Structure formats: structure tokens, C-alpha cells
């Protein structure tokens, strides 16, 4: 395997959890809800995914458990914000704090144990092609799933009534309610989808990226995914581009260390966070791009008259 191949492979592996979490959150935000609990759902996905895979010995069971954990966490958020009309910012923060705490508790007996790795796919012939073979055809199933989910979301938003409905609810929940749409119901669905994606992203970390359980192993990726959605101005294809860009930055730091660049490793490690800030600045300065796509109702509580 050439060095370039290896770099590309690691970039894809580093980008996939960001893409999964971000595309899920994109759907949530398009429906007018801001869920700051991505980090919490992700870490819960990571720990339950690992625990299930370790206990059953099946990586597939791990993936399913990760998704399930994400959904359960998301439904907790949905119940508070949609049914009880609680503040979305505070509830999202609570979800993150709770998730980090609970994952530590659940994961304690699993710390340091060898994990079950979700294997790469192998397509005879194609996977053996030089360079593009391993990169395009030799990935694990979740990489393809992340791309497929992104494409699916893009298609739903532009081509289907469901996507139109979600965009409409995010754009003006009062109008949508007046027309008879079930605002809270649709948002429940979107939040659950976001949770499934975040859980899967977490599971990817503990089943593929570093197949073991380490406390706080999400390391702020959930927050970066949130920033990615803003950076991508709520469009799926730009989320994908952004995720791969951020994955590249993440890996760049590691490789710079590897080839002996004389910069303290801590500075390289803080690079993704600094790049996130810079990316937010770049996009926030561009009013045209942000205004048009920003879901007008984002973060607002909606309680219909009855």
C-alpha cells in the first residue's frame, strides 16, 4: 500500500463519523430544531456499540446497538423540547453532559478490552486496483452507508413531499401548523433520525476508527459536526465536502508529527478546533449564503393554540 493510499484511507476513516453526525443534525436543523446534544448521542453510540459488539462478538450487533442508543437519547431530547416545550439549547447541553457521564459509567468495565472491528468490504477485482481500489472499493460498509445516507437526504430534500414538508416546518412552524401539519410529530421523526446518525457515528469510532472503548473518545467531534452544518449552510453536499475537509485537517496533524515537523504535538492536536472556528468565521461573514438557507425557526419553541 502506497503512502498516498494510506493517507487517503485514514482521511476517509476520520471523516466518516463527522459526515454521519453532521448529516443527521442537518435534517434536525432543517426541521427547525437545534440539538446541541450530538456529542452526547455520539458518545452513547460509541459505548453501547462497543459493549454490544464485545458481548455478542458481532460487529453488526454493535452497529445496531449504537443506532438504538442514539435514537433513545434523541427521543429523550424530543420529549423535553417538543412535548414539554423546554428550551432547546439547555436540553441539548443536558443531553451532552448526561451522555458523557452515562457513557463513562457504562464503559467502565470495558476500558482497555480489545474490541471487535467491523471489517472492510472486499470486491474481487475492483478492490485490488491500484490506488482507487482500496480507496473506492475496499472500505467498510459504514463508509458507503454514510455516503448513501447523504445522497438520500439530498434527494429527499429536493425531490420529495417529505423533504418539502420538513423544510416548510423549519421555515415557518406557525404556517405549517395552520395548514394542518403535525409540527411536533415531524420534528420527533427528524430528531430520531439525527439521533440514529449520531449514534452510528459514535459506533463507527469504537468499532472501526479505534476499535476499543476510551472515555471521552468522541473528543468534541459532535460539536465539530454541529459547526459543519453551519459551515455547509444546511446543504447535504456541502456537509460532505466539509466533513472530508475536516477529516483531512485531523489527519494532517497526525502525519505532520509522524514526519517530524518541529511543532509541539499539542498545537497540531488543537488544529481541528481552531480550523472549526476559522471555518465558522468564514461562513458567518457571508450573509448571503447563510441567510437564504438558515431555517428561520431554528431553536424556537413552538406551542400551538388548542
Amino acid at each position, binding site marked *: 500500500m502506497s503512502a498516498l493510499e494510506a493517507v487517503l484511507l485514514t482521511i476517509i476513516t476520520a471523516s466518516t463519523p463527522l459526515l454521519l453526525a453532521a448529516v443527521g443534525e442537518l435534517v434536525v436543523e432543517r426541521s427547525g430544531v437545534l440539538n446541541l446534544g450530538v456529542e452526547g448521542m455520539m458518545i452513547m453510540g460509541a459505548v453501547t456499540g462497543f459493549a454490544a459488539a464485545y458481548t455478542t462478538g458481532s460487529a453488526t450487533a454493535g452497529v445496531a446497538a449504537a443506532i438504538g442508543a442514539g435514537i433513545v437519547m434523541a427521543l429523550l431530547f424530543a420529549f423535553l423540547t417538543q412535548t414539554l416545550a423546554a428550551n432547546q439549547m439547555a436540553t441539548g447541553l443536558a443531553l451532552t453532559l448526561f451522555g458523557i457521564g452515562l457513557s463513562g459509567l457504562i464503559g467502565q468495565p470495558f476500558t482497555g478490552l480489545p474490541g471487535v472491528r467491523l471489517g472492510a468490504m472486499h470486491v474481487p477485482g475492483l478492490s485490488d486496483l491500484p490506488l482507487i481500489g482500496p480507496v473506492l472499493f475496499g472500505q467498510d460498509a459504514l463508509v458507503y452507508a454514510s455516503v448513501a445516507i447523504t445522497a438520500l437526504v439530498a434527494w429527499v430534500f429536493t425531490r420529495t413531499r417529505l423533504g418539502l414538508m420538513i423544510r416548510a416546518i423549519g421555515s415557518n412552524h406557525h404556517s405549517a401548523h395552520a395548514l394542518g401539519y403535525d409540527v411536533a410529530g415531524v420534528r420527533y421523526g427528524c430528531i430520531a433520525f439525527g439521533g440514529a446518525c449520531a449514534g452510528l457515528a459514535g459506533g463507527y469510532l469504537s468499532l472501526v476508527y479505534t476499535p476499543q472503548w476510551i472515555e471521552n473518545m468522541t473528543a468534541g467531534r459532535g460539536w465539530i459536526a454541529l459547526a459543519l452544518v453551519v459551515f455547509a449552510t444546511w446543504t447535504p453536499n456541502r456537509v460532505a465536502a466539509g466533513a472530508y475537509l475536516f477529516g483531512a485537517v485531523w489527519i494532517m496533524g497526525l502525519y505532520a508529527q509522524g514526519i517530524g515537523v518541529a511543532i509541539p504535538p499539542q498545537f497540531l492536536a*488543537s488544529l481541528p478546533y481552531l480550523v472549526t472556528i476559522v471555518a*465558522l468565521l468564514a461562513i458567518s461573514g457571508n450573509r448571503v449564503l447563510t441567510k437564504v438557507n438558515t431555517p428561520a425557526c431554528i431553536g424556537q419553541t413552538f406551542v400551538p393554540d388548542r
Partner: protein
Amino acid sequence: MRLVLEKRPERSRAMQVASPLFAIALTVLFGSVLFAARGFDPLHAIYVYFIGPLTTLWSVEELIVKATPLVLIGAGLAICFRADLWNIGAEGQLIAGALAGASIPILAPEWDSALAIPAMLLLGMFGGMAWAAVPALLRNRFGANEILTSLMLVYVAQYLLDWLVRGPWRDPHGFNFPKSISFSDWHLLATFGDGRVHLGAVFAVLAVVLLAVFMARTLKGFEIRVRGEAPRASGFGGFSQPGTTWLCFGLSGALAGLAGICEVAGPVGQLQPTISPGYGFTAIIVAFLGRLNPLGALVGGVVLAICYLGGEAAQVELSISEKTAQVFQGLLLFLILTCDTLIRCRVRLERATQSPPQRDERVPVSLRNTSMTRSRFRLPGQSLRGAAR
């Protein structure tokens, strides 16, 4: 059955007091269920966890030590959240304050002067303020989301601290451990009792009282409250939005910085890779438990400190992981938010179907006689009917 919310015409004042109490009670209830499920006597476990820390002088002092940073930071965050500004990077501001303040004992260890401690405290506040000024600046100047920027800066601060204690500020005689030199006595805060409660506790009480007066009685405090309730009205009142942002981030950053320097010049006594068990994040819960009111933050800080101590006690006495403390903290915040709904709304259960008196006479739309309604009346325009197909 479904839950139905009904907006109250005015916020319930009784519930504003009762809601945090409900939340605490529910957390204890959930906790005992959790303990029972793991095979412990729930009453005993609850006693160890929530009452034990209050029964000995030693643990009460420890409680004050833990509550000090929580109250300092929580009171500042309460003000930020009141203004609808989401500074969630207090952990980073705490580290920045600790680093700025610790520069004196590390770079000038021989400077033995009555001015040393005040200088450290001021530098600590300044460091926290400077770290918090970044998200404020980026929000005011570029409109960047302060939640994400303030949080990203936590990671940056942690790596900065890590680099300093492993690199330039490492104790040269410390056997290569990632630690700074231990601060000399003249660079440590005065203590009370048997030597653990430090001056920071006084600062915390002072900060709470001053901020409570500030919020309730001054025009600046009024400005902050207006900004959170109705941003347009704040402009109409003649208050500057960027100005309020600077003020809130500056205040909360300075308090977090003060908490940071008080930690390293108090219980910790040196710099090390971890100087806070997540006080900056736990303080978010403190602020909410205190109803975003500085006085409430005092109570909230004590409750959350009990949670930390109870976690440690439970680990020793019952061999329950100390991680349960974090779970309880997260659970508590959830339950506060849940109970806060009662302030704004009445909640009742209702049968899934609407049940007006003549329910049995009603005909579902799907059963209505469509052929009759269609044939009987003319439609608006023949061509329109065609168009509608």
C-alpha cells in the same frame, strides 16, 4: 392518553421556587431506583450519597472547597444565559485564568510580596476574561455562533495547558512528571479551618451578593435581562447589543478565570495537566438549578458539590463507580428543564381522542357521503375542475 400543555397567562411564581426542588427530589427518586436495580439498599445508598457529605466537619469543608469554583462560575454563567448568550466554554476560561495567574509563581517564584496574591488574582480574572472575549468578539464582529466558538476554545486551552506543563513550565527537578513547580507559601491563598477552605470561598459569596444586587437593582442588570427576554425591545430601550455581549462574556470569563486561579493557588498548588474535574461544564447545571439567578447559583453550587462528594463517598463505601456522580448531574439538569415547564404551562393528561359532548353523532370525514356532496352542487368553474385533476 396524551400530555397536553396549556400556557399560563402569567408565569407561576410558586413554581419558580418549587421547580428546582421537584427536580432534586425526582433525581433522588431516580437515584434510589438505580441503586435498587444494582442490588443496593436504596435508603442506605441515598444516605451515603446525599446526606453523608453533610455529617462531618471534614466533609463540609470539602464541600465548600468543591462548591467554590462551581458557585463562582455558575453565577457568571447565570448572567450570560439570562441575556440569551450561550457561553459554554467556562472550562476553557477557567484554564486560561489559571495559566495567566500561575505565570507569577512559575516565572517569578522568588517574588515574595503582599502584592503577589492580588496580582495573581487579577491576572487570573484577566486571563479568563481574555479567553471569553474571543467568542464575544467573533460574535459581535462576524456573527459567529458563540456556543461553538466558546466550546472549541476549551479544547485549545486544554492543549495549551498540556503543552506548558510538559514543556516550558515543567518543573526541572520533577523527575520528568508533567507538573509545574509547587507554588511557594506566599503564592498560595490564605486558608481557614484545618487548611483546605481558602479565600476563594469568600470571593464566591461576595461575587454572588454583588451580582444579585447588580442584576436586580442596576440599569446594566436590567439591560441584560431585557436582552434575554426580548432582543428587539432592548434596541428600542436604547441598549447596545454588542455592549451587552461584551459585558456578559467579560463578567463570566473573569469569574471563571478567578475560579481557575483560586483552584491552582488553593487546593492544587501547582499546574498539572488536569486542574478541574469539569467544573466549567458542571457550572452550567449550577446556573440552571439556581434559576439563572446569582443567589440561586449559591444553592446550586452546594447541591452539585454534594453530588461530587457523594460520588466519591459512594465509591469508597459501596464501590459504586464515581462516574454515577456525572450521571446524576446530567439527570438533574434534565429534570430541572422538565419541571421548568410547569412554570410556563399547566400540564394535564388528556384522552387521545377529542371528546366533546356529541361525540357519537360525529361522522369521520372518511365516512362522509362523497358522491352526494359532489353531485349536488356546482363547482366553481368547469375548467377549474378539469385543472384540478
